[in-house]
């Protein structure tokens, strides 16, 4: 049920693209992801949605190089499985669903790990400023000296996002190659204010030329911020395209196997508003 081509700009060059072609992932004898293909370009906010166990997180794990895969996954023209971590780290940052830290580090020390891939290139003064900016971006001003284990789950998640931001601060490299942020349910542990704030931050990164690919659970936040959406169901891509095209009653109801109604709010510009219904 492909609605519209995922790719919006026909003139985009391969270094601006994430191309997934016939990707398959097996885990413990089960085919988790089967024959998924899509091509997305930087300068946009892309999302993957789908019910639990549909393979969306596993697909993301293959894209970030954490899982082996069959088929082909190319980021900026590089096949992921053949690209060294230090090269990948240069063009893309990854925010996991949750990140535990082994020893009690300060927030500043955690964020400094974002400089791992280009440690020699940063002067201390420069890093200090970058950390402050990153903390501002995630609304944690002045948290530098706090101990990471003492923070709440949502604050920890925002510190990790600040670390990822420090890794790929400029959305576009000097040679014009866009950088990417891969986010696995980035806002599921956040309160509503910070959900909006982080989604805005991601959308802004895309507006400035970077690429975003996020696995999302909240359909309304997806509708509000995303440009495109890929719907996963049973390990396959069920639908893909622009949010306005994919967010239809029957597509979402089929995907989640539950009656869902999509309204377009009249005041807002064409933004779909998703309501689950049916007997409780």
């Amino acid at each position: 049920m492909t609605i519209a081509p995922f790719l919006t700009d026909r003139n985009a060059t391969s270094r601006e693209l994430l191309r997934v072609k016939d990707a398959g992932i097996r885990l413990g004898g089960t085919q988790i992801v089967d024959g998924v293909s899509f091509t997305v370009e930087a300068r946009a906010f892309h999302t993957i949605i789908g019910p639990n166990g549909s393979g969306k997180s596993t697909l993301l794990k293959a894209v970030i190089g954490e899982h082996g895969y069959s088929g082909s996954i190319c980021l900026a023209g590089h096949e992921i499985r053949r690209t060294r971590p230090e090269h990948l780290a240069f063009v893309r940052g990854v925010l996991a669903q949750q990140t535990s830290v082994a020893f009690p580090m300060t927030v500043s020390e955690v964020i400094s790990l974002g400089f791992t891939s280009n440690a020699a290139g940063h002067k201390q003064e420069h890093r200090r400023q970058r950390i402050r900016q990153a903390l501002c971006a995630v609304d944690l001003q002045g948290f530098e000296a706090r101990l990471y284990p003492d923070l709440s789950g949502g604050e920890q998640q925002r510190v990790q996002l600040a670390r990822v931001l420090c890794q790929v601060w400029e959305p576009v490299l000097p040679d014009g190659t866009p950088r990417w942020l891969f986010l696995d349910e980035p806002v599921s542990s956040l309160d509503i204010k910070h959900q909006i704030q982080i989604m805005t931050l991601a959308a802004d990164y895309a507006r400035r030329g970077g690429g975003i690919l996020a696995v999302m659970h909240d359909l309304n936040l997806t509708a509000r911020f995303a440009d495109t959406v890929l719907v996963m169901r049973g390990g396959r891509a069920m639908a893909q395209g622009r949010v306005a095209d994919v967010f239809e009653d029957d597509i979402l109801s089929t995907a989640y196997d539950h009656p869902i109604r999509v309204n377009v709010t009249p005041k807002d510009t064409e933004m779909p508003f998703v309501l689950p219904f049916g007997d409780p």
Partner: protein
Amino acid sequence: MTLSSWPLFGGGSRSWFKNGMPGTREDLARSSILLLGMTLIAAGVFSLATGPIPVPVLEVLPRALTAMMSGSFDQPDGVSARDWIVFAEIRLPRVLLGALVGASLAVSGAVMQGLFRNPLADPGIVGVSAGAGLGAAMFIVLGTGLLAPIAALLGIYALPLAAFFGALITTFLLYRIGTRGGATSVATLLLAGIALSALSGALTGLLIYVADDQQLRDLNFWGLGSLAGASWAKVFGAGPIIAVVLFSVPFLARGLNAMMLGEASAGHVGIRVQRLKRLAIVAVAAATGAAVSVSGGIGFVGIVVPHLLRLTIGPDHRYLLPASALLGASLLILADTASRTLVAPAELPIGILTAFAGAPFFLWILLRKRGLTGM
């Protein structure tokens, strides 16, 4: 390789005492390393001066150093023959060996804790030292018969190498058993350590059963953990191996720092995780093997030293590793000085002293909530 490429001196901040980043403990860490370096020198001089026969170290040491500068290792003028023998043949190799062993135990502990992401991982506790002991015991018992040609070929390095392979096999097995899907289960790790220790112990026992009298005396030494057998041969046998490890582990520091986020995230920030793990395992096995081959099993230094340092200067391995080496060396020199003076003219095995201090400390870490992070 220049000095500035060594992570402690390079890595983005050139000047040592510039104001650090708020929330990082880099300045504290740098000054701590200077302080610990001075502590090590003081501990060494104190230990050289302490013992049943008083030696005027402050007179002997400068003369010995001056003589050494001009390439002479003989008795310098103005130093009595008795003082020189006590200083150069008994105390100096013992202090140097204590420093080498202490540094390697503490650094092995720090690297292993970074690798397993847990403050309780230590070569002594998870059975790596026992594996090294088994390797050494095999060499002592079989080295005169079966392995004699190899032993002759390797000379003074044969025993440290045998211990190294024992430690390497144990560490590798531990990692394979304790790690599944990128996550290390500490419960599995500790239990596997108990099993591997028991197995190494049983095999060592079997070797004791077939050993002759001379071999038995050599073997007996492993159980206790002591620097009493210190000699220049041991310093030159284990020293180069330990020195190579000590000067190369700082290159693992960046990777071990990233590992604090977990294996997956370490890969995402640009670390080749498999290579890091292999190098760390070899470094731990080499340092533990070399230390065990000259001093037997001395426990808890690898837990106490890195943990105390993490509490003060933080877990950044660029500073933690050198600081652990310096503090481990100082502590072991002082513990050894105590072990040979407390009940003089007899000697307490140093392993008893470190266990007395270290075992309660281990329990204290266990009981503190933050020490359990990652369990």
